[in-house]
């Protein structure tokens, strides 16, 4: 029996004891093929999934390496069945290859006749295929490249896409590294992406995903379509690109509800792309508007279904997905794998934090005991009203005021779900409120004021969940959330993770009402963060009020 840091469980999870002396080495060795599921303080849990193993295959690792790694670091004997399963699963990737045939165009080639026969027999595959060229090769309708990959993944025979990419319309783009430079992991991410052709880069919030996008554009030297979650985020991409690259104002277009510019680099929002007019997605032709050489999907874990559908049709263009997490609440990870591409780069939050690129964060859950009156109101409320009632309870407001007071001088964000509550808080704290109805111009003005330190505190609704760069925000107070969304919690924490000028620690408060559904939802959201290594401390609201240690 060796004394390795890894324990391989029969349910295909890998437990890594982080305090073990070989833990770091082991983590690097298993990261390519195992997906990090939880990273709490002592034992990290990784999981072997078919997607993860195929990602590893796509990145050039083979089953032997994987098995060898498991055996090398495992503390106990590894179940034989699991090793066999790993080899089997990995063996499935690449038996089918999508190739460009000089005479017949796009073809599906197999190294294994039996697999090809099995696949061709599938009812879902048949309509996608053209003529049989020889024993091992079948023509594929070029328009079905993405769809075919999707279906093949579903039936467990993922195809390796070697059919290459169109170069797209060339357009010179270069990084301007003045006063900053590409970080090592950003460069690795861009390089890995470029080597793989298409795929997803996973980096924590605040780790500079935009710059990875810019670096990828500099590699592509071609017209680029960037899809982002909302207009504010689009403006931020634009200003980042202007700052970091040779691109000029005239070269970057915004394609949103407000403006419809199509330029060599065009930034479009998911919302406008999925707007339907008379049941038709009116703006999807943007994908075909120019001969794009690169398409970047920001926050790929939020990619809406219609965009997936359209992405299936543009498989010959290079695609880069950027995200903080591949966890999709809708379970469409497989679509991301087959349509955008395999994971090309991944770095755990804590690693980047350790390198000083994101600020360390301290998460605190403040439990507020509701007044008897509030408890009675809560107890007798209709079920659908309950969350709102406890999330917006007046008892919370006093605690929030006190918290803001305690961090006076720090750049503080108060984040919430319910507009009434936010308006009320804004009034009591005497600070501006940003919500859905705030105009883009006003939002930008306020964010700018916040950045410059003119304004110390902002009350924001969920519009600020994504992609808003507020580097100096160091305190976030979450007063209510969209029920138990783990995604949202991570995004909100991400708002305050930009490294601080003074190198200080960020504070993330979640104010919740004790013994209510608020507490249950908070527990669900926090599990995700705890699994990312951000453990919550729990304090009592009375301690906050009494100026106790928090």
């Amino acid at each position, binding site marked *: 029996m060796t004394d390795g840091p890894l324990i391989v469980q*029969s349910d295909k999870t890998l437990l890594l004891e982080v305090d073990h002396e070989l833990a770091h080495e082991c983590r690097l060795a298993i990261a390519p093929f195992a997906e990090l599921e939880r990273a709490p303080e*002592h*034992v990290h849990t990784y999981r072997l999934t078919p997607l993860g193993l195929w990602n590893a295959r796509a990145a050039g690792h083979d089953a032997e390496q994987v098995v060898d790694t498991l055996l090398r670091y495992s*503390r106990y004997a590894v179940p034989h069945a699991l090793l066999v399963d790993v080899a089997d699963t990995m063996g499935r990737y690449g038996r089918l290859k999508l190739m460009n045939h000089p005479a017949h165009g796009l073809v599906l080639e197999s190294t294994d006749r039996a697999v090809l026969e099995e696949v061709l027999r599938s009812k879902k595959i048949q309509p996608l295929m053209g003529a049989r060229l020889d024993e091992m090769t079948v023509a594929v309708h070029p328009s079905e490249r993405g769809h075919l990959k999707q279906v093949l993944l579903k039936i467990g025979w993922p195809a390796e896409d070697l059919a290459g990419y169109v170069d797209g319309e060339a357009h010179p783009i270069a990084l301007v590294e003045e006063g900053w430079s590409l970080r090592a992991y950003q460069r690795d991410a861009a390089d890995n992406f470029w080597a793989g052709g298409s795929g997803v880069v996973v980096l924590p919030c605040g780790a500079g995903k935009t710059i990875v996008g810019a670096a990828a554009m500099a590699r592509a030297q071609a017209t680029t379509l960037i899809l982002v979650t909302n207009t504010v985020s689009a403006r931020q991409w634009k200003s980042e690109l202007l700052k970091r690259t040779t691109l000029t104002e005239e070269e970057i277009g915004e394609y949103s509800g407000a403006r419809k510019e199509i330029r060599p680099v065009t930034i479009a929002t998911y919302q406008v792309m999925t707007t339907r007019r008379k049941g038709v997605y009116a703006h999807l032709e943007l994908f075909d508007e120019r001969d794009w050489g690169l398409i970047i999907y920001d926050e790929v874990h939020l990619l809406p279904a219609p965009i997936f559908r359209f992405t299936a049709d543009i498989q010959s263009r290079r695609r880069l997905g950027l995200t903080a997490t591949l966890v999709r609440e809708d379970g469409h990870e497989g679509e991301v794998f087959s349509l955008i591409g395999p994971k090309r780069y991944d770095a755990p939050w804590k690693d980047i934090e350790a390198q000083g690129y994101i600020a360390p964060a301290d998460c605190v859950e403040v439990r507020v005991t509701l007044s008897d009156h509030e408890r009675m109101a809560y107890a007798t409320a209709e079920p659908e009203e309950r969350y709102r009632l406890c999330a917006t309870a007046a008892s919370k407001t006093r605690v929030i005021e006190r918290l803001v007071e305690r961090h006076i001088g720090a750049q503080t964000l108060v984040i919430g779900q319910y507009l009434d509550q936010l308006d009320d808080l804004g009034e009591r704290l005497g600070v501006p409120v940003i919500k859905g109805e705030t105009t883009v111009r006003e939002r930008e003005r306020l964010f700018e004021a916040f950045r410059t330190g003119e304004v110390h505190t902002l009350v924001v609704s969920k519009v600020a969940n994504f992609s808003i760069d507020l580097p100096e925000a160091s305190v976030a107070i979450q007063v209510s959330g969209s029920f138990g969304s783990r995604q949202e919690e991570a995004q909100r924490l991400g708002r305050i993770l930009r490294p601080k000028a003074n190198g200080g620690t960020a504070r993330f408060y979640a104010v919740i009402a004790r013994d209510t559904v608020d507490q249950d939802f908070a527990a669900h959201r926090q599990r995700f963060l*705890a699994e990312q290594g951000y*453990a919550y401390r729990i304090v009592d609201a009375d301690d906050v009020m009494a100026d106790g240690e928090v």
Partner: protein
Amino acid sequence: MTARSLADALRAASDDALAELLGARPELLSPVPSDLGQLAARATGAPSVARALDRLDRWTLNVLEAACIAADRTPGEPISYADLRGMLAAADEPDVRRAVDRLLTLALLWGDDDGLNVVIGAREVVGTQPAGLGPPLQVLLGAVSPWVMLAMLDDLDLPAAANTGEAIDHLVAYVNDSDRLDAELATAPREALALLEKLAWGPPSGGVERADREVRTATASTPVEWLLARALLVASDPRTVALPREVGLHLRRGQAFAHPQPTAPAVVVAGVRDRVDPTAGAQAFSFVRATEELLEAWGLDSPPLLKAGGLGVRELRRAAALLDVEEWETALVIETAYVAGLLGPSGEIDDGWLPTPAYDLWRSTPPEERWATLASAWLRTTRSAGLVGSRDDRDRVAATLGPDLDRTLAPEVRGGVLTVLADAPPGAALDAAEIEAVLHWTRPRRPAGLRRALVEWTLREAERLGVAGQGALSGPGRALLRGEADDAADALAPLLPDPLDHVLLQADLTAVAPGPLVSDLAQALALMADIESTGGATVYRFTESSVRRALDAGRSADDLHSLLAKHSTTQVPQPLTYLVDDMARRHGRIRVGAAASYIRCDDESVLSELLVDKRAAELRLRRLAPTVLIAQASGELVLERMRSFGLAPAAESADGAVLVRRPDSRRTQSRQRPPRLATELAAPSAKLRAAAVRALRAGDRATHAPRGRTVAGMAGAGVLPRTAAAQTLALLQAALEHGAAVWIGYVDQHGSVTERVVDPIRLEGGYLTGYDHRYEEVRTFAVHRITGVATLEAGDSEFGDVSENGNFDLDPRTTEVRGPA
């Protein structure tokens, strides 16, 4: 002195030799024979010999076959060792000697080198085709007509014969004359020689159309005819020709076997593994753990016992989901626990599967001993978990723990497979096919199909149990095979991880035990946390419900805190402390109990008075609130007592309304109205009338139509037809053919005899299906219940024809029975 019989030989044998015989053929001892004569008789009997032969390896069996061939050549005479040796020239002397000695030991042969005898039973069991040779010519000629034999004698220039016996003698002498055969074969056409060659080593017979055709050497036109005309092939039946044994032996140059195999085939090693024992250790550990997990779960929630015995498919699936392993493996866990005596039917009316008391003893032993118990039970059992889910001849699915899983071959094959693995070099993994080839040599008479399946099952099961690891026999497995369970446990112990007494607690409310836990801690943790993942380590998750479970089980928050603090190597994470405290704070805040009735009264003093009243003691009152009492007596009784105390209580309904009380007036359960005597009946409806007429007509036909129209003396008015069974069938068939209606007497289920008029539709499988006029529907009648049949042809006279055919000859017995009527 030469022995004259096996009994003599046994009498002359040493005690050791006898003991060896009894050891090798244990069935001879049950029951213990009274003397050596009886022992000899039993040892020569076919059933006992068959069992002995089943245990022989291919080589020894071959030598015995050769001995049978030799014995057939000289009927009634013993054979000599030299003869036998001569037929096995390709084998080495020690191999032949060894086999003969073995056969002598087993009393399948007796005598000495000059006179060896094959016991009769052995000749029977070996059969008519020893070593793949056909029957002797003499036997074959039994089916050949004398004319054909005479023609052969004539064609082959053999002396004429006066009778069949002589003809056979001449022909036998002819095939035993090898010079003559050589001479004949020298002139044989090439195709005929090829055919002989094929039959000589292959199956000694082949299919030919009209094999018994008359052929003469002069007119033979095909190779088969050429051979038939010369008695080199003989028709054994009209479609088969066989090669006479003498000819076969001649073609084999006197050798019984082309390639004798005195030793087991060598195995090809599939690969040499280097982590056999660690892998096996881990598997052994998980197997024991799975057994515990399952039995613990079943102890709380026992799966029902099927009526047909065994465990339902759905229960098996549930168990598989619980253990997170495949179904076959789950079945193995269950079956192994069962044969180890850890699991059994509860024996209650509501029968289910429960852990036995032996399970508790078992669980208190160290893991390696637990494993040894399971593994030895597995090795020896005749139950074969691999059969679960297969279908038998009647298409019934074999259920886990069901009655259809016993296979006597199973333990033998299991032992056999492990022995083959044990004989291979250490760490060698072998393919199932290789192992099977060896087993086929060691026990050639065992059924191959079942054995193949058993070999495969044994390999996969041994792997799961940790008897094997990576396809090779493990150290503990080796000890187990030697029959030393204690050694096996000792060999396993160092392979099992040491139990730990600590866990790692984490802020995401999980606890990780990085190895097996000491059993107290494992049980305590399992109570307060849910197990999320098992394997080398165990991951526990604390949830509200798991903590509540611990509190429900009587643990206090302090107990839980101190348990966590004691067994955690790091500080207890704050969220976990909060979770425990939160749950403890809320636990028991709401109390639930049962009361039979309640008493409420706005005047608190009345209730206080009631509480102290001795007369109310039997109501077992308890005060819940100043104005509320509960009682353990029914509302009725409480009311009655209150009234007797001089109080004036009112009853309340479930929703709090006052119930108005009246003296109880009772009712029967719902009853049907009593029958009414018929006075003036209402006129029946038209439909009813029509139906009545039809019924009357049918009844009329039944009673009148056959009257005077049946065979004379057969039926009078109202007399049921009676016919013998054969006649019944004949009549029904005739009626079916003619589409005629029949009048039948029919014994119904209650034993009363009714008469029916039926239009037969179908007659098959002992049932008559037909349109019953009385009931106006198609009915089925069991033919054996039909007392008799008379045909009637829709009221006219044509059916008389049938009687003239003589179909109605009466059985004297039926006439007799009819007499009293």
